[in-house]
């Protein structure tokens, strides 16, 4: 993702041995290319998740031959994991703030915490899936099953990708391999992470909490 704005006249200065493009990118709008791209991507993701959520909404009541939502959802458990994901947004913000202060140590610390919380969430989801499966809701059992697993699965994959990105970022920061503006890279991963959280905010309400 983090390609460098290239047509600009820029000056590179070496830092820590790597070729660090610490460049002031002058763009027409004055905005960073990378951040703009990330926001566009997130705008696009709205339509992706919108489609999955609508499909789920349409099909949630159709579960002949298998358990329905109200039979299997474990609201207290999901609430805990929702809370965990929510808090990971806080730690992410703290990581971004540390990065802006050029405080690598704290940046890394918060990134690791965020990744752990994310991993915990994914773990919760894996547990939830196995539990549901044992209660008779397979991917192919019913329309409800297919659309539930697809929606939450897509979200889970997004979280997993986020965790990998966070950990890779920690590695890159530790070894000074971040190309481009470090704070901005952290911020970009942060945007992605918050978006994934925000999607869960919606899923948690629409899928789990609203009585069907």
């Amino acid at each position, binding site marked *: 993702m983090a390609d460098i704005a290239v047509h*600009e*006249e820029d000056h590179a200065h070496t830092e820590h041995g790597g070729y660090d493009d610490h460049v002031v990118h002058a763009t027409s709008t004055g905005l960073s290319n990378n951040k703009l791209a990330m926001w566009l991507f997130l705008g696009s993701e709205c339509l992706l998740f919108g*489609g999955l959520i609508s499909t789920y909404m349409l099909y949630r009541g159709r579960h002949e031959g298998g358990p329905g939502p109200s039979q299997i959802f474990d609201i207290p458990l999901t609430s805990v994991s929702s809370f965990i994901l929510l808090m990971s947004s806080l730690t992410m913000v703290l990581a971004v703030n540390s990065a802006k202060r050029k405080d690598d140590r704290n940046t890394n610390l918060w990134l690791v915490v965020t990744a752990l919380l994310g991993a915990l969430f994914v773990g919760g989801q894996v547990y939830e899936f196995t539990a549901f499966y044992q209660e008779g809701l397979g991917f192919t059992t019913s329309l409800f099953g297919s659309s539930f697993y697809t929606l939450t699965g897509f979200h889970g994959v997004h979280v997993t990708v986020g965790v990998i990105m966070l950990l890779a970022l920690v590695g890159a920061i530790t070894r000074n391999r971040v*190309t481009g503006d470090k704070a901005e890279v952290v911020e970009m991963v942060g945007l992605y992470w918050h978006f994934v959280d925000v999607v869960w905010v919606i899923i948690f309400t629409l899928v789990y909490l609203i009585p069907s």
Partner: protein
Amino acid sequence: MAIIERPSAVPATVGAGGTTELVTPSRALGAYRRPVSTTGWKSWLFTVDHKKLGIMYGAVSLFFFLVGGIEALLIRLQLAAPDNTVLSAGLYNEMFTMHATTMVFLFVMPMAAAFANYFLPLQIGARDVAFPRINAVGFWLFLFGGIFLNTSWFLGGAADGGWFMYSPNSSALFSPSHGIDFWVMGLQITGIASLVGAINLIVTVLNMRAPGMKLMNMPVFTWMVLVVQFLLLFAMPVITVALFLLSFQRNFGATFFDVNQGADPLLWQHLFWIFGHPEVYIIILPAFGIISEVLPTFARKPLFGYKFVVFSGAAIGFVGWGVWAHHMFASGLGPVSVAVFSVATMLIAIPTGVKIVNWTLTLWGGKLWFSTAMLFSIGVIVLFTIGGVSGVTHAVAPSDTQQTDTYHIVAHFHYVIVGGAVMGLFAGFYFWWPKMFGQMLSERLGKWNFWLMFFGVNLTFGPMHILGMQGQPRRMVVWPEKLTGDGFFDLAFWNQVASVGSFVIAAGVLLFVINIFYTAKKKVAAPLDPWDARTLEWITSSPPKEHNFDRIPTVHSLDEFFHRKYEEVDTENGPKLVKVKTAEEVLAEEEANADHHIHLPSPSYWPIVLALGFPIIAYGVIFNLLLTIVGTALVLLAIFGWCLEPSVADDSDYDPPAGGDSTKELATLG
């Protein structure tokens, strides 16, 4: 000579203040060097240059146009006589499915991407796009996706569900071959290409404009491309969802379209058309952009009502989201939905009409030069209008229940697509060829090309109006003799006319292909400004240097180039436009004030590697999950390499070693 600016240990001037900083070369980073070839095949495989990518996009889509065209000719051969046996029923179904898929996804969309890639940076005065490597990935994904899709012909048969692939006919039960799996996965792959391309181009337009290039100074082509990228950005995810649902059903047993489980087949229709209708504007708007460049150039006056044309383009893009269900008037939506979508659809004729009117008024009072590009553009106005008004007859929902799924629809969309989008792209070919290759396509062949296509389109698709109204449904491998009727309107006669017409189009297209080879062989250099053009892409050599502009031009107005050449002088008979500078002089001035120390992105190995992983994953999903793991590993490796790649090539990698001033003198594009 290296085109890639490499960091040299010479002091470079930085910033307005003129402070000097030392720029040192980077160090090699293990295996992750960047390739540096500027000529030869490697320079194409690893290029990140938007112009090279543009040319590759163009070449590949042209190839797919011929493929899709040959499929169309086979369709027309089959339909030339009643109960014909050129194609079997199964093959015929594969043929029209792949004809449409190839034409839409592998020809028109990527051909528009070709022009967008090549000319958008030039038109806004940029040296490249915002994300050159992502740009390269887009191209390779398109190429590999297209090849993947077409390998289905040899691996058990192509998709046979029609291009909108309605469920449940697309379920494994009803289409047991792997064709639809190829279709689903192929479109996913090219879909990623469109999505990343869209993000890239939007950022480019917003962020990389030359000084003075306000949004309202941008050429209309750039504007239309921008609108298209937004449409892609928001439409691709919708089809992505639909395709995922379908492939989960076909490959992993999900139940989304299983009616026995209570599924509603209309789910697919909605998702497809929520994508599909914006898609038709994705198809047409680049062509609108092209002819909005061509018409003013050859009328020698600015586009009439620039702002109206721009806003109407945006309006089309916007309203286009609210009309998708006009493809489902017979699907049983219920009267309220039908009425709402019917009226919404009619609304779209208003902004589109604005464009037609403005083009026509651009011509009014002009000094019209009928070059081939101009002929094609005028052809678009005429043919698109015919297709557009038949679109309005479809928008009238009750009449559409008669028209839908007949040849009347086929007539409508071929008029707007072939008469509109394809002819528009051809206008682009003739208009921009000298800029891209420094050679003029033969105008004489070009005019033959135009007239054959123009008559061919009318001969092929005109009769389809009659066929439709006489009740011939589409997608029928045979039409029966007993239902042809006789007299003036009989189906047999008009089907024959249409079939003959398709070969007339083919002759036109063939002339274009011949023209390319003829031109390449003749090797006559084109004048710098053959058309007396108006926009920024002409303020550079033909073909443009690798860094596009010696000096980033400063823009003062719309039609910047024109205003540098012409000035208004007062004469006795009032003000008069006089040419004060030739294009050569304009260019010389730029060259004389060239920017120093231009920094261009280095080529990269990773885009092609990354893209290659996707078809492997897709084959894996169809044939053997082990392959999927291999593909995924390749993708991960490529991402890893991508991230660790230094931002420029290592000094010692340059070949031949550059000496002295490394910023100039670029290899030609060949």
